């Protein structure tokens, strides 16, 4: 008998050759008499074991749902299917679902038409008899706490339209403001807090869905980390990294409004230091100093954020990002990064680390190349482990050459 092939040796080890078969008997006899094949069998066994160990070192985490949960999911999807294609046994349930959907659609249409009609009336000077002190659409929109609850595209259209109007008005005002305070337009102004003039509702810190739900020890207040899109001063030095500030892509305002509405529910780390990079492709080109000041006040951490945009026009409208930690050069580096599901933002959190020199986070959109990059340098003081109280300031500085 010729030597046993590698494939048969592995099949033998895998128990894929039935013991009662002639082939099994022939292989057994050969292995007993052929030292070459016996040693090759040992080598194959070792290789098989090595491959198993490698695969076992990358096992998935997470826990399995119960079968009942899966069964209910399947039933739900059955119900969904029955609306469009009711089978003989599902006719009644499908009919009911369709009927409910019909009612729901009618109600939504009525609400939507009412909202739009009301908006038009208000724009033309009509005063809401039930709320005379609040006569404009803009103020009503501003007061809406949960725009996502409305679930109406018209809402975001309204927001976009109003924001565009506001932006146009601001553009008209800008030259005068710029002349009035030239210091603000100096990108070298290290002490100039970008958010000094930012309205309160533009503060970027982290949105905390429920202040009372977080203990004082866990609580962190980020002050002065305003929305840099809003804080970008007119006449500021052109960003050194990209060379120009990119205009917001169409629908960006709507996406931002949607993102803001989603953040509280989606950010599980609302109680820890976080730097939110708002649409970096268009707003955070340039260099910023990141200042942490912790409240017990023992640690002060200077740092720098540099941002570059790769595909600035394609930022909005996506919902899946990953954040990648780049530099691993520093020993003892520990950072945890959480990528928000919200469309226009990335949340980066520094956890702890000693001898940290730098790390890089990058935003990546599904199916695309890099969209933005934030480089955080922390050359001096390390962040103490698990610091959870403090304030963060972003200060625009002049970009230093590489």
């Amino acid at each position, binding site marked *: 008998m010729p030597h046993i092939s590698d494939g*048969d040796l592995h099949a033998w080890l895998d128990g*894929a050759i039935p013991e009662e078969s002639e082939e099994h008997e022939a292989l057994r006899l050969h292995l007993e008499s052929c030292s070459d094949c016996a040693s090759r069998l040992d080598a194959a066994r070792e290789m098989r074991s090595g491959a198993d160990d490698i695969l076992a070192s990358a096992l998935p985490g997470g826990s399995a749902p119960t079968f009942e949960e899966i069964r209910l999911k399947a039933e739900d999807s059955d119900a969904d299917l029955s609306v469009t294609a009711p089978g003989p046994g599902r006719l009644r349930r499908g009919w009911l679902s369709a009927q409910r959907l019909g009612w729901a659609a009618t109600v939504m249409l009525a609400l939507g038409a009412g909202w739009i009609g009301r908006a038009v009336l208000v724009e033309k000077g009509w005063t809401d008899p039930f709320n005379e002190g609040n006569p404009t659409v803009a103020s009503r929109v501003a007061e809406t706490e949960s725009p996502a609850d409305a679930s109406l595209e018209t809402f975001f259209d309204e927001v976009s339209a109003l924001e565009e109007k506001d932006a146009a008005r601001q553009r008209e005002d800008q030259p005068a403001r710029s002349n009035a305070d030239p210091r603000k337009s100096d990108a070298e102004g290290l002490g100039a807090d970008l958010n000094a003039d930012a309205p309160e509702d533009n503060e970027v810190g982290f949105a905390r869905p429920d202040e009372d739900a977080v203990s004082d020890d866990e609580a962190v207040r980020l002050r002065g980390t305003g929305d840099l899109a809003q804080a970008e001063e007119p006449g500021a030095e052109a960003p050194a990294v990209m060379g120009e500030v990119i205009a917001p892509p169409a629908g960006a305002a709507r996406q931002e409004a949607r993102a803001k509405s989603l953040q509280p529910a989606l950010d599980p780390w609302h109680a820890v230091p976080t730097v939110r990079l708002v649409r970096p492709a268009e707003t955070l080109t340039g260099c910023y100093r990141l200042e942490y000041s912790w409240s017990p006040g023992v640690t002060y951490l200077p740092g720098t954020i540099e941002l570059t945009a790769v595909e600035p026009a394609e930022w909005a409208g996506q919902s899946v990002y990953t954040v990648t930690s780049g530099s691993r050069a520093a020993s003892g580096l520990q950072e945890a990064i959480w990528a928000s599901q919200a469309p226009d933002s990335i949340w980066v959190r520094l956890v702890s680390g000693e001898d940290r020199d730098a790390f890089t986070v990058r935003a990546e959109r599904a199916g695309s190349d890099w969209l933005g990059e934030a480089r955080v340098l922390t050359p001096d003081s390390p962040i103490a482990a698990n610091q959870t109280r403090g304030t963060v300031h972003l200060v625009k500085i002049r970009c230093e050459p590489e």
Partner: protein
Amino acid sequence: MGTDWAAVYEASYEDLVRFLYRMVWEDDRAHDLAQETFVRALRHDPEQPRAWLFSVARNLARDEARTAVRRRKHLTLVRAEESGRVAEDAEQEMERSERREAVRLALDRLSERDREVLLLWDAGLSYDEIAEQTGLARGAIGTTLSRARQRLVEAHRMGEDQNATYL
């Protein structure tokens, strides 16, 4: 059909997740796809449940791979609710991430066919089932597995050597 789906679920869910995880490299996504596979199976009630499950899972994972973001080195995604635990969790997650990355890179060195056969075997499928899934002759499964294991071990070792050089 009289398939005891609860028993099939009990016996196959973890295997399916393990198989999918090595295709998509995300815990949550692997679970999502496994659940989607079972939901579809319950709707269709196929005659050969296990073979059907892995066939659908393979297709879902391939679709996923076509649209997914290319994963980068040192990807670290940590979700933790308790801030006090985060540093420790992050460290563990980092180590896990490095191991996963090493395995992923080693598996990437295999041909698609070799990789699939190896992962199907690792997920608990028999030679007959793998042959049915992949269209390979049953007699070719051992040869394919032999080649796949050898390349995996070599590629993994090569990756370790390179890391040692950089350190």
